[in-house]
């Protein structure tokens, strides 16, 4: 299958500038996204992302200088709610799926989520 509008651009890019996503960039993105990536995966991702962004590069063929970025596909005003309290009064409902809960001295679960100590 042929990638639309691609062959000439790809050739040109390879001759001039290929946007390379290197390993350091991958590690930086992974850090931002809080995803642990292994050494070998870093290598693979660098290659894959380079290819993907190389392919995406074709968008630069389009002059969009005077185009407004889309804000929404639905042509409507944003709906709003009235200021009423009718939700959220059930701690167990939001805590029942928690993978970890603190407990009191008797072992009863406390109404908190818990994470490893945040050092501040």
């Amino acid at each position, binding site marked *: 299958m042929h990638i639309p509008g691609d062959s000439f651009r790809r050739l040109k890019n390879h001759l001039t500038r290929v946007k390379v996503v290197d390993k350091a960039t991958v590690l930086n993105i992974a850090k931002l996204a809080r995803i642990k990536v292994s050494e070998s995966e870093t290598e693979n991702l660098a290659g894959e992302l380079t290819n993907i962004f190389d392919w995406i590069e074709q968008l630069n063929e389009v002059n969009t200088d005077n185009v407004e970025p889309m804000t929404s596909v639905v042509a409507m005003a944003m709906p709003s709610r009235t*200021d009423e*309290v009718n*939700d959220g009064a059930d701690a167990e409902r939001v805590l029942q799926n928690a993978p970890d809960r*603190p407990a009191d001295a008797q072992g009863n679960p406390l109404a908190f989520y818990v994470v490893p100590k945040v050092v501040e």
Partner: protein
Amino acid sequence: MTYLIEGETGDWEVVIGLEVHAQIISKAKLFSSAATEFGAEPNSQVSLVDAAMPGMLPVINEVCIEQAVRTGLGLNAKINLHSVFERKNYFYPDLPQGYQISQFLEPIVGEGVITLDMPEGPRDIGVERLHMEQDAGKSLHDQDPKRTFIDLNRSGVALMEIVSKPDLRSPAEAGTYMRKLRAIMRYLGTCDGNMEQGSLRCDANVSVRPVGEKELRTRTEIKNINSVRFVMAAIEYEAERQVKIYEDGGSVVQETRLYDANKGETWNMRSKEEAHDYRYFPDPDLLPVDLTQEFVDEIKASLPELPDAKKQRFVNDFGVAVDDAATLVADKETADYFEAVAESGNAKLAANWIIQELFAVLNKDSLGIAESPVSSDDLGKLVGLIADNTISGRIAKDVFEVMVTEGGDPAQIVENKGLKQITDTGEIEAMIDALINDNPDQTQQYRDGNTKVTGWFVGQIMKATGGKANPQMVNELLKKKLGLG
């Protein structure tokens, strides 16, 4: 008057900008229908939306939009009819969605101004913007040695972030700015300004520069200061710290710092400076906020009288001194209290009594005006008794004392204790005659031209009447009797 830090190399100027987070007064949260009340049991005011359960979506609370617009109008700011909610992406356990819904490129309120009453005169401080955003939950670090507990009650509560221009030049100005902003929002009913409960928090951006330098130098940000006093103290410490760094030949590092109120110091929050990249983008779960001018005008028409206008009216209509008027309007309850007392007919007297006598009593016990042991009604009656010469100002203090400690209607107290001013000239004349008769030496001294003796005569009469004589009347009668005689 200018606040400058004296250094070995010369004088330094402080440049301050404040970012204030003000909790919007609303029953429910910004994007969910959970309650916003302070002090609830942990996680008892958390909807599925606030806990960021899969598939949950935000729907905006219309009152929060109104409140933001109302606040913008109160700051004489530009209301943007089109504004956009964006996601500010970062990971933190008290941020369940992994992003905060906030406004970034297009906030709901643009530039405005807050006028400060400084001792050296009024100062206009620019407001850069006001935007709406969600509050985060609360991390409790002290419940367990190894773990942090998370309470999401605050998660999703509506905030206004109000960003000033870097126009403030002293800790005092920063403090006054905070108080004025708080007063305006309390007048508007958009934020209760309660700093202990966290409904008003301040981040201060501080830099210093040698006097005369035009460029801004590197600033540090002191985060989450929770009292006006600490805002001022933190800025003062931080400015001096920065001056010392420069004078020692160093340079200030752009960083986030925290203020330790116990030590009176600021300290660097992060050991390693992690890269912040919030990846803002318009929230695709929401649409832009598009307001009509009509909507804005309606809110504008419903705005209450704000401190500046009220102050002007107190000066113009009541003849209250400018400084006193500024003091009275600093919070709405005091201004309302004053207006009620002023009904008594003598506004200047009312102002004096509130500022001098009542404030002394309130300050002694750290009470707010709402908790005043003397109601505005009773104080108004007291002022009325002074104004119509029923009692003297001197006696009024005694009556006030009784009102504070025991309570009661001032007229009744005057009646019960027989404190009514003696306004019968005949009675006082008789007393003066007797005094002249019994004290020929003093009378002679007076006639020899020693007018200082008048005071002695007045004192004797007042003593004899238990202070109930009208001092002016006593003076006039004395003059008549001694001068003519």
